[in-house]
């Protein structure tokens, strides 16, 4: 019996490992569709961001209630996963609670700690489900939160609840079995799960073993299945948030990054020194598709968990414009996914006649942005939707000359009068001659 279980466990683990590896490679190659960019500078600040923002969730605490609940789930999941190590060792060796005899009463303390964390996770998930579906927090119901994003969120919360319930069931039956079979090592009294023991009073030890084994398998398959699931889900942020905060831009938010290719051309036009002869094709100015964006923009799109804090602070979105910074990030990810799936099947990938600009993000959306950085400030994992919006605008302005007519006149005014308005340059200093 144990040997069969060991083999089954090994196979389960191998399947999960295979699926996760395959998907991880796909995600990495999707991210590599973006332009190369070396990010190695200012390591101290980057580690600081990882520690404070990802590990410490500093930016979440701008909204204390969801932050606290989120912290419960986060801490619970992180720490309870220590127990999964024991699960895996037990599963492979055919042992049961291998650490229990070694750790003695410390094991009891540890398990009780895990149970309280599990209760916290369960509670927080229930409150989150209520907030989403009954209280209908507006940011979870905006236009881009269509059927899949909503289902995805509810699935994640439900799976987490079910997994926690499996832990309690397993521990309750386990405690009842201790003393009946030598295999079930004593764990000491587990305060929370022992409350469930009366449910199973009168059950035969054999049927308890079935329940315990079922809960154990359900929990481990659930966790492995969940690990596979999140690679397809917005929930990927639990891993990528750490990477994204490391690679997040450190320049002042107001600074738009320079385009050296343009500097070169402008310098040679103005006859300034320092212009280098153009080497090869200059490439596209700005971004029309995801391969015109840098890879870190694409990583950011996979790190987005669709919380919508950005959109709920966006002045354009708040006043009913089409722009939603969250949708921009979701569009980038959807475009990557679509290209990735196509490439996997030997399809055309990005050369399918579609583009990020136009087929996913429209000009109306990007034209509504006030570049106010509210979205950037709001993101708990340091995603910068504004960078992407500017890249799209650059393509429209420089490759298509397709900016709104009034912007084109503004451009013309700057060129001819050196001011964005149609005032003669000679009048620039008149303010000093005029009255109060």
């Amino acid at each position, binding site marked *: 019996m144990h040997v069969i279980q060991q083999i089954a466990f090994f196979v389960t683990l191998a399947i999960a490992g295979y699926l996760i590896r395959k998907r991880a490679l796909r995600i990495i190659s999707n991210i590599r569709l973006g332009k190369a960019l070396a990010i190695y500078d200012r390591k101290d600040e980057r580690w600081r961001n990882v520690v404070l923002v990802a590990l410490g969730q500093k930016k979440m605490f*701008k909204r204390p209630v969801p932050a606290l609940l989120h912290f419960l789930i986060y801490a619970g999941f992180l720490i309870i996963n220590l127990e999964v190590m024991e699960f895996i060792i037990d599963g492979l060796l055919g042992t049961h609670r291998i650490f229990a005899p070694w750790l003695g009463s410390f094991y009891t303390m540890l398990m009780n700690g895990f149970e309280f964390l599990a209760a916290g996770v369960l509670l927080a998930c229930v409150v989150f489900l209520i907030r989403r579906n009954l209280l209908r927090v507006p940011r979870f119901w905006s236009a881009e939160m269509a059927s899949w994003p909503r289902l995805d969120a509810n699935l994640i919360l439900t799976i987490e609840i079910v997994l926690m319930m499996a832990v309690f069931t397993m521990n309750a039956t386990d405690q009842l079995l201790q003393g009946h079979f030598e295999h079930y090592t004593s764990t000491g009294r587990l305060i929370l799960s022992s409350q469930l023991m009366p449910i199973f009073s009168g059950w035969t030890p054999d049927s308890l073993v079935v329940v315990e084994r079922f809960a154990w398998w359900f929990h481990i398959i659930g966790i492995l299945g969940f690990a596979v699931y999140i690679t397809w889900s917005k929930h990927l942020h639990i891993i990528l948030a750490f990477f994204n905060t490391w690679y997040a831009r450190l320049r*002042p*938010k*107001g*600074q*738009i990054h*320079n*385009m050296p290719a*343009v*500097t070169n*051309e*402008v*310098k040679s036009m*103005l006859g*300034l020194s*320092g212009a280098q002869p153009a080497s090869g094709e200059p490439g596209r*100015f*700005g971004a029309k598709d995801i391969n015109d964006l840098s890879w870190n923009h694409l990583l950011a799109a996979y790190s987005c968990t669709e919380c919508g804090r950005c959109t709920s602070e966006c*002045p*354009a979105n*708040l*006043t*009913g*414009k*089409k*722009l939603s910074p969250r949708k921009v990030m979701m569009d980038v990810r959807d475009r990557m996914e679509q290209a990735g799936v196509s490439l996997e099947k030997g399809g055309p990938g990005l050369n399918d006649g579609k583009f990020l600009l136009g087929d996913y993000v429209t000009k*109306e959306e990007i*034209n*509504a942005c*006030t*570049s*106010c*950085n*509210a979205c950037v*400030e709001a993101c708990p994992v340091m995603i910068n939707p504004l960078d992407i919006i*500017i890249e799209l*605008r*650059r393509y*429209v*302005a*420089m490759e298509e000359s397709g*900016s709104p007519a*009034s*912007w084109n006149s*503004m*451009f013309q005014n*700057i*060129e001819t009068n050196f*001011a*964005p308005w149609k005032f003669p*340059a*000679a*009048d*620039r*200093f*008149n*303010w*000093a001659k*005029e009255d*109060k």
Partner: protein
Amino acid sequence: MNIPTLAEMTARGEAPEILFWVGCAGSYDDRYKRVTRAFARILESTGMKFAVLGTEETCTGDPARRAGNDFLFQMQALNVIQTLNGYGVKKIVTACPHCFNVLKNEYPELGGTYEVMHHTQLLQQLISEGRIKMKEGGSFKGQKITYHDSCYLGRANNVYEAPRSVLSALDADLVEMKRCRTTGLCCGAGGGQMFKEPEKGRKDINIERTEEALSTGAKTIAVACPFCMTMMSDGVKNKEKEGEVKVKDLAELVAESQGL
């Protein structure tokens, strides 16, 4: 007013302590020209040696860059940098957060590195150094004033305290809007929006922000940016409150308190 230009000063073999970068709105917009003059009068009153570029000044290129036209931005920027470097400019103050941001953050990559201050930062410094002397219990004592954060000062460059400390030096009773500092709501003019009609929506952003400002009950909405000035003034007019509520730049408030 007799404001020296950098050309005149250089011809006399002198150099200013600081260059006052006026900006396009400060030069051409009738409302913001009053701010330019107020700030210039303050600088004069402190005896600080400053100069302007006068007709040699041009657009920094900022709105072109925000709208995506980096060619035009860089054309402008490289020309401006030539002028500034030609005069050996070291230190710049400007009353426009957009110029401030570009000069401070985006010119260095193109060869123009200066010490750049926003006028609220210089005002704060001059007050704390005693070069601007605040009267005890001045004309703003007990007056409710709300301050609207400019995005390019606040979130873009983390300048939140300078304007507020100027207000507290004025003895004003600062009432914050709910969305302030890092969560301050944009006036709606940033990112090139100043130069186009807003996209279709339920409401204009400046109306949303003006409603919030009016709900504080303050009779003065203090701003520190020419675009915010336009948007908030338009909002107040739209709400037909221009009789009772004034939109003023911090430099104007300081000038008023000094009787300038």
